[in-house]
Structures are given as structure tokens and as C-alpha cells.
């Protein structure tokens, strides 16, 4: 059990500055997910914590030790890799026991720990098999088992589910969450999948181009994204964006562009007034757009372009003015392609971003 602290962490390769001034306090027993598109520096950050990558500048603390110059084996961490990284020539039992053998644990203790982990993961009957005789999901369980037998201070996960098929991924996601609740070990988890990040993380760290964009609890990121990138990255289908101009009509702050006209909620009006006459980016989540009666004054017209019936919901790709947006509507809605519809948005569900800095307003 330990906290992990990253202070001003930087990683530079010859020409690439992969990780920039990362500061992060991961509390004891916390499950923190690093998420971002490929090349954002999340895996590099994780590998620096593991000791597989040298730290160019900054300090990493695990527990109360600065681990910068410690080799991976002395950091008291365990890692689960994307491709499982099982030892192909060893049985499942030996795979799980290897780390303990290297640390000269007594045979009885090794046996006890491996059995415990195998029970926990439901792989007891696989202990005598070799990795090649296992399915992807079973392999990943063994990889997790190899990590937990060590009883490390910190678990590191490097996209552990990305090689599994969609159904298995959902199942393993739930299992990992249950496992973490039970083991209560600090965990750092890297993924490019925002759904995984949202469902697993106590807190989620969104990264891009080596910078941390925002750190927060999943719903905080969803409801109050710090900038346009986080807003677009978290949530599926992604948030809709449109450029629009801020005006004021009779004391009411309004954002308009050809085809779109929405009122700003009173809570944001004050801040938006500063942008009067300027262009801002408006963000609307697909589920915040509703079909409205045709005479609603704050609504806007749209033309249906594509209808995607998903069963529990319908996604409508619509044209609003010059921009294309996605609306998530009730499955009872019957919309046809090329049909004109009127959409409405609750003013307090709108997000606004500075057009230049992309920061949330």
C-alpha cells in the first residue's frame, strides 16, 4: 500500500519531448487511469514509474522513497502488459511463481500465494498448462495473477484489455474493478479507451502531447471538461462543436451562427459577456439535444443526414447550418433521412470554449 507522487516529470528522447512537466499525486489505494490518444505520453509515464524508462527530469516517489535510480525489481511494483508477456516456456504456475522464486520466497509460501491468486481469478484448473494452451482472456488472468502474488505496493497496467475482443473486454473490466475493490492496492492504469477510463478510474488523468490536460473523477471530467480536447475525448459519441458569435439581446446573452441560436444559462452569462462580439466554440453533448416542438424559440432547425438505430437509442447525424452534429434521441423517435427537424438544448447543458486557447469558459 503506498501513494505514488510524480513531481515535474519530463521525458525527452533525441528529438521528441514525450512527457512534459507531469505532476500527479496518486493516493494510497487509489485507482488512477491515464488516458489519451496514442503518443500522448501515458505509457511512457507508466514505464517511468515502473523503472523501464529513464526519467529525464523530475522525481518519482513510491511510498516514501524516491525511486528515480532504483531498478524495476526494487520498486515494489508489479506490471501487467498489453501482450500479457507471459513466459511461454513455463506453466501457468511457474509464470506466477517466477517473481517469488527470484525473490527467494520459501516454497510453501509461493505455493500458498499462487493458489490464493488462482482461486481469486478462477484459474486453478489452468495451473499446469502452458500459455499457448490458453485463450486471450485466460492469459490476461494469468498476467494479473502474476502481478498479485507479489503483493506489491503498486499495480501498473499497460493497456491490459486492448488485445481482447469487445465482449471479453467488458467482462474483464468488471473483474478488474472487483479485484481492485478487494485488494485495495494502489493502481495506475493506462488506456486509450475512454470508456475503460471512466468505468475503472477513481480518478482519470487525460493526457495529450505529453501534457496533462485534466485530472478528475470520471463524472467531473464529463460534466466539467477543462478544455475542448477533454470535452471531445471523454464521451461517446463525442461532444458536438460549432463556432458561434456571442451577442446580447435585451439583457440575455445569446450565441448564434447561421442556423444555430442558443441562449446562455444565467450561471455562465457573466463570464460569456466578456466575449461579446467574439467567436467562441459551443459544445453540446449528443444526449443533451432533444427533438422540440417546432415553435420553441430557443430551438434550432436541423436536417437529418444519417439515422443510426442502436436499439436502446437512436443516433441522428444532422446538419445544423454548416456544421454536422450527432443527436442521441429516444428509440421511439421516427426520423427519416432529409427530414427537417427542430432540436432544443437546455441552456445549462451547453459548454463554451475560448476559440483560441480552447479552455472552458
Amino acid at each position, binding site marked *: 500500500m503506498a501513494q505514488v507522487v510524480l513531481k515535474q516529470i519530463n521525458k525527452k528522447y533525441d528529438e521528441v519531448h514525450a512527457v512534459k512537466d507531469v505532476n500527479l499525486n496518486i493516493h494510497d489505494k487509489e485507482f488512477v487511469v491515464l488516458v489519451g490518444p496514442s503518443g500522448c505520453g501515458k505509457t511512457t509515464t507508466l514505464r517511468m514509474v515502473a523503472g523501464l524508462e529513464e526519467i529525464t527530469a523530475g522525481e518519482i516517489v513510491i511510498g516514501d522513497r524516491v525511486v528515480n535510480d532504483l531498478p*524495476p*525489481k526494487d520498486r515494489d511494483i*508489479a506490471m501487467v502488459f498489453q501482450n500479457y508477456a507471459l*513466459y511461454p516456456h513455463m506453466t501457468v504456475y511457474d509464470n506466477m511463481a517466477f*517473481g517469488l522464486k527470484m*525473490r527467494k520466497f520459501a516454497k510453501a509460501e509461493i505455493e500458498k500465494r499462487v493458489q490464493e491468486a488462482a482461486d481469486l481469478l478462477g484459474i486453478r484448473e489452468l495451473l499446469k498448462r502452458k500459455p499457448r494452451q490458453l485463450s486471450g482472456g485466460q492469459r490476461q488472468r494469468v498476467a494479473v495473477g*502474476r502481478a498479485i502474488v507479489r503483493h506489491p505496493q503498486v499495480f501498473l497496467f499497460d493497456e491490459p484489455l486492448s488485445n481482447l475482443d469487445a465482449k471479453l473486454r467488458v467482462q474483464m473490466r468488471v473483474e478488474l474493478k472487483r479485484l481492485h475493490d478487494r485488494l485495495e492496492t494502489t493502481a495506475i492504469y493506462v488506456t486509450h479507451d475512454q470508456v475503460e477510463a471512466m468505468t475503472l478510474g477513481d480518478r482519470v488523468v487525460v493526457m495529450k502531447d505529453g501534457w496533462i490536460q485534466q485530472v478528475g473523477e470520471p463524472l467531473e471530467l464529463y460534466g466539467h471538461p477543462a478544455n475542448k480536447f477533454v470535452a471531445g475525448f471523454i464521451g461517446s459519441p463525442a461532444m458536438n462543436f460549432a463556432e458561434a458569435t456571442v451577442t446580447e439581446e435585451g439583457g440575455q446573452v445569446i450565441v448564434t451562427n447561421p442556423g444555430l441560436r442558443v441562449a446562455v444559462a444565467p450561471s455562465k452569462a457573466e463570464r460569456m459577456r466578456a466575449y461579446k462580439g467574439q467567436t467562441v466554440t459551443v459544445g453540446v453533448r449528443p444526449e443533451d439535444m432533444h427533438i422540440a416542438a417546432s415553435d420553441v424559440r430557443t430551438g434550432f432547425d436541423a436536417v437529418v443526414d444519417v439515422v443510426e438505430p442502436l436499439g436502446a437509442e437512436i443516433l441522428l447525424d444532422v446538419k445544423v447550418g454548416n456544421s454536422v452534429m450527432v443527436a442521441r434521441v429516444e428509440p421511439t423517435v421516427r426520423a427519416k433521412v432529409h427530414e427537417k427537424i427542430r432540436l432544443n438544448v437546455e441552456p445549462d447543458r451547453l459548454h463554451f470554449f475560448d476559440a483560441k486557447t480552447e479552455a472552458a469558459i
Partner: protein
Amino acid sequence: MSTGEGYAGDATRVVAGTHKAAYRASWYQRDAVQAILWVGPAFLYLAFFIAYPFVMSIYLSLSSARVGSPDWHYVGFVNFRRLFEDPVFWQTVRNSFVFTFGSEIIRLLIGLPLAFAMNRSFKGKRLVQGIILIPFVIPIALSSLAWKWMFDSLYSVINWMLMTAHIIDYPWQWLGEPGLAMSAVIIMNVWRGFPFSAVILLAALTAVPGEVIEAAKIDGAGPLRRFVYVVAPIIRPILFVGLLYSIVFSFTDFSSVWLLTQGGPYNTTHVFGTYAYNIGINAGDIGQGAAITLFMFPLLAIFVIVMLRLLRRE
């Protein structure tokens, strides 16, 4: 009929239910004909250049055939009996083993660290890779000339270096002293063969996933234990195959010994190939020569079978 039409025609006939007729229409599409076309060249090659000489050597080893003499007949196992009574032959057997395993061990000792070094990325890696392969691609007839000079009794650059470094105090007769001659032959064979070993080992090492090595690092294994417990077992099958080829090549080697020492001095570097050539071609006793080459066969066969068994168990 063009192939395109053929396919279209076949398809319609399959639908019509007269499947066989389509194949009768184009005789070259039949399985039997195709089999002969594809396997034929390899079969002919093996038959003429492997099977025929092999059967012929068995036949000759049981005969009294001599160069230039048309009159030869079956003599049974006389050639083999004479072989077993020939002390030079037994010396040749011993030499062949010393030559083969001496070369193999040194090749591994040089090749393994080299492969590890080449498995990292560094500037100029491709250039180094190319340079390493040079001994392998230079014709042995050429490179042996250079080695002859390097081992020359008067002009040996090796002697010059060793003497300048005060390691030896008089010029060694590399090709003239029994022990040294064997070392010289092994040195050249190692020089020629280590690129092969290194390339095989490098291929094996690149087959070990980086993540597995990292997992072992995190599991607490240092470089030595990583090699023993993780890398070596993973690359073992490839290593076996490489070793198998390498040993067979060395065991049957003729050119490097022949070009450097011709089996001398005092037969101390004769291997199966050179001794068989000496007796069979130079001395003209073809039957005896064939018996010598055949002696290699059961040894190699047993060795190959054992290796392949081990490999399959992996």
C-alpha cells in the same frame, strides 16, 4: 482457353452439377499433373545430385574401384575392414570431432555476445551488420589465401603482432606444427562461420518479445538469471536448429581444411572430407575413399535424429 475463361467455365459447370467434366477439360489442372509439375524439379535434383551419388558411394565402398582402372568388382566389406585397421583413419575421426566441436564452441562464445550487442539499437547498426557478414560471403578460396599469408612461417602478421606484444618470443609455425595447425584450421573455420551463428542467434533474440524481458526485470531477475531462465529456454528451438546446421556443415567441411593444410602436417588436421579425397582421388583408391565418406553418414544420422527429437519435444 485462358485461365479467366477456365474459371468462369468451371463455375457454371459446378452449378450445373457436372463438376468433374470441368477438370477433364483442362488436363493441367488435375491434382496428379499439378503435383508432378511442382514437385518434379526438386525430385530430379535430389535424385541426380543426392540419391544417385549416395547409392553410388555405397556401391563403390563395396567394390575394388580404382581411378583409371576399368576392371573392378564386388569385394564385400574389405574396404571397411582396412579402414578400421588404419591408424590415420582413427586420427581423422578424432580430428573431425575436435575440429567440429572446437569450432562450434568458439563460434557460440563469440556469436552470443555479438548477437546480444546487435540486438540493441545504436548508430551505424546496419553498417556493422553488413561488416559482420563479410566473412560469410567472401568465397573461401579467396579468404583462405589471406589466411595462408597470416599463418605463413615467414610473413605471418599474427606472429608479428604476438611478438610485438611480447606474448611469444619466436615465430610460431602455424601450419607446420600439429597442435597449431589444428588451431589455425579451427580459427579460420570460426572466422568463416561466426556470422552465421551470430545471425541465427540474433534472429532468435529478436523473437523474444521485449515485454517478456521487461516482465522478468520487474519480477526481479538480473541479466544472468534473465538469460538462463527466460531468454535461453525461449530461443532454444532456434538455437538447436542453428547448431544442427552448423555442426553438420563443420563435420562435412572440406574446403577450409584442404585450402589451408591439406590435412597435414602428419595427417593431424585430416577430417573425413579431406582424408576421403586424399585416398579416393589423389591415391586413386575410390572404393576406400567411398568407405571413408560413408563412415560419416551413421554418425550424422544419429546426431540429426537426436537433435530433431529434442526439438520436437519442445
